């Protein structure tokens, strides 16, 4: 890779940061408790819209994991979720009604807040429907992981998205507030993922799973990317490029080993396929605020009409991280 191209990426990163500063004017603080953040605290960043029903369990899950402070950006919710969050003692929340799309799908807002508050903190960036699973997460808190990463001089940790789905129709069992969505949607695809390498950003591009299998079977190339780097020892120089799929500087995307070995990695259990998806797809389709003209939601809306069953005979039922490790979806690497 030439000096020229790495210079261009550097400019791109600088541009994103200037943009983030500009877009920060769209943010209005609902509750700013960032003064309570202590050095070494583990932070979680999240943008959301109308996710009230999911929030209580989301907070519970990540508090148990050991996240110390949550920073939310609410994009014009009208379901009371933002107000609920503003009351939480470990949450800071900003709100905006500006365009999600024009803010690089929320990344400009997050980049700004990360620039301000996340420097030198281990930072998880996830959506409300993503649940982080890492090796030994049933016996060790996330701080054990970040301490180990620190001692190994590793700055970023990869976690692939694993789409979870229910058996039967997505709409069959409604999701109840403050319950574990895994109880409804414990199934996943274990071994139908495809990988290619993005030479520009050096990340792996992973596709597959039920979304490719059911909604994108006729055009697998457009299937959503599943690779993510959600956990990063943040520096105010960093910025996410496209969702949390990749970062700049691009060295942070090297979360995989190229010499035959395995680096440690985790999984984001992606709880998209609950009964809330139908309404969400309809809303997002009309708003058109998502990636590629909300093509993904169009596919869901279309797909849900015709074949709402994602489950097949060979679907795997989630047990724990060790199962995912054995299946080769994530790895312990040399963490023991």
């Amino acid at each position, binding site marked *: 890779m030439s000096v020229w191209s790495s210079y261009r990426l550097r400019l791109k990163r600088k541009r994103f940061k200037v943009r983030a500063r500009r877009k920060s004017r769209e943010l209005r603080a609902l509750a700013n408790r960032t003064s309570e953040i202590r050095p070494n605290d583990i932070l979680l960043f999240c943008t959301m819209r109308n996710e009230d029903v999911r929030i209580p369990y989301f907070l519970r899950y990540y508090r148990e994991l050991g996240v110390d402070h949550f920073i939310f950006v609410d994009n014009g919710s009208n379901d009371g979720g933002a107000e609920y969050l503003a009351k939480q003692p470990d949450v800071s929340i900003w709100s905006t009604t500006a365009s999600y799309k024009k803010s690089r799908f929320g990344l400009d807002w997050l980049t700004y807040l990360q620039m301000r508050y996340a420097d030198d903190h281990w930072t998880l960036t996830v959506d409300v429907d993503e649940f982080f699973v890492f090796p030994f997460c049933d016996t060790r808190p996330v701080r054990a992981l970040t301490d180990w990463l620190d001692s190994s001089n590793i700055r970023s940790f990869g976690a692939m998205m694993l789409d979870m789905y229910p058996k039967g129709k997505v709409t069959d069992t409604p999701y109840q507030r403050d319950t574990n969505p895994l109880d409804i949607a414990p199934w996943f695809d274990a071994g139908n993922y495809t990988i290619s390498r993005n030479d520009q950003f050096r990340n792996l591009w992973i596709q597959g799973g*039920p979304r490719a*299998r059911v909604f994108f079977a006729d055009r697998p190339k457009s299937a959503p990317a599943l690779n993510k780097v959600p956990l990063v020892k943040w520096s105010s120089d960093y910025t996410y490029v496209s969702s949390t799929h990749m970062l700049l500087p691009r060295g942070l995307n090297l979360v995989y*080993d190229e010499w035959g070995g395995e680096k440690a990695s985790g999984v984001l259990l992606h709880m998209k396929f609950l009964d809330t998806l139908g309404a969400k797809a309809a809303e997002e389709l009309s708003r058109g605020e998502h990636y590629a003209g909300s093509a993904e939601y169009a596919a869901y809306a279309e797909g849900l009409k015709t074949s709402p069953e994602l489950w097949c005979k060979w679907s795997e039922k989630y047990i724990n991280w060790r199962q995912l490790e054995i299946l080769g979806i994530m790895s312990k690497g040399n963490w023991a």
Partner: protein
Amino acid sequence: MSSVGIVILVHTAFDRAEQVIRHWVKGGCPVVVHVDSSVPNGTFKAFERKLKPLKTVKFSKRYRCEWGTWGMVAATQNASEMMLTSFPDVRHVYLASGSCLPLRPVEELRTYLDGRPRTDFIESATTADVPWTVGGLDKERFTLRFPFSWKKHRRLFDGYVRLQRRFRFKRHIPSGLVPHMGSQWWCLTRQTLSAILQDPDRPAYDAYFKKVWIPDESYFQTLVRLYSPHIESRSLTLSKFDFQGKPHIFYDDHLQLLRRSDCFVARKTWPHANRLYNTFLNPDPAAFKAAEPNPGKIDRIFAKAVDRRTLGRPGLYMQSRWPRMDRENGLTSSPYSVFEGFVELFENFEFWLAKETGARVHGHLYHPEKAMFDGRQDHFQGALSNSAILRDYQPHMFLTNLIWNTRGERQAFQFGPDDNQKVAPSFIRDRNAQVSVISGAWAVPLFLSNRNFADIRIDAARMQQVETAHLNALRAADTKARVRIWTMADFIDSPMEALQTIVDEMTGKSVRTVTEAPRMVDLQGFGQFLQNLKNQGMHPYLMGDFPVENAIPAPKSTTRKPYLVRK
């Protein structure tokens, strides 16, 4: 009483260090504490104040202990001298760090050492005999100079090493010394330790070791060889290193493992491992054990972790393992078989093969319409879809996924010139592939089909071209698959022999002989069919020589019972 004295080097996690020091003191061991001089004075003072009331805890002169430098040795020397002079009862000095956790009651350690009053426990091996050097420096640790910090000035460090290598620079090792290395955590007797510290040549040795790379792993390990009457070359401290030379860390979930290891001290413990600290610092006094330390099981777990990191699981492609070409350590995870031309020649081949070998036998997985899974199901193991579009998006990964998903069950599938050829290079390059080809057998379905001859001729020409290219690739020098190619004529000459070879290889040379043959299609008129193609100007040559009429041992009727002729 106090036959064991503990020297502790501390630089972080002072709460835990304090807990551990109190534990040693409570067990009757005097402690000399060294605190890294890079620790802020305020922190140090607070730490010191907390331990002040303890009469048998002393603080030694503070040195800067950067990893791999002399400071660590200087600190140890100083603290050891303090231990020997301040506590005359001490017979063994145990060197530990602040993150070392005692796993067995102090009393057990004392009893153990009392039983071995003259033994020095220190890992000490010559450079040629140890595999665990990091950065490619083993013998050179002792023959080059290392004035630059490895952590802070890596470039200068590496550059200076290169420079010395280029000019063949060699330091003189003081006479009488044979360089040894080993774990820096030791337990030495007063006699040995004082002999090392009071050696008249010590200034010369110190001057030499000051410029040795990582002297804390070699200073005492080398000098102990001069004085010790009885060396046990192992450390009483359980301490495992990963492939980058960093110590593995113990967490709460290691509790049972650590307990069963019967080691005296473990390094290094995660400071937040509350359960470990609570359990081991409040040992059950009734459960006295005189067991020998046995770290075998922990060794294995950590060795496996290092393998996972460096070698990975062969045949797995995933988010954190994406090997470059030729670094895969096995393209797929287990052996599988590819059959070309068999289903064309035998009516019930898939069923027959499954029965004979117990393997999972698929049809044409790379069929243009869809992947023909065993039983023609829509999905297969791992939720692989039979959609041709999904499969053809990355044909190579479809194969690696299939083989990975079915670990423990041998897979076999059919392949031919009508299938997606893009996957062929993958299995040709793969040691795990067993490829058996009956060349030209693709002509049989054409022969049996009820189509216009002109169309058949076009198809035959195309398939012959595709298969010729494929066979050339199979015969190329860089092929790694085990390949067997028969022309169709050769194969039907003695089919059972060929089938027996294949089955034997698949099942691992069983003595079992194949008793039932698969049913061959009726080839009556096939020679004429080939001749007709020739007459049309399309020369089929991959089948071998077929006489025009009836020289082929065609089955007399479809109901004939097949049998095996053995010599």
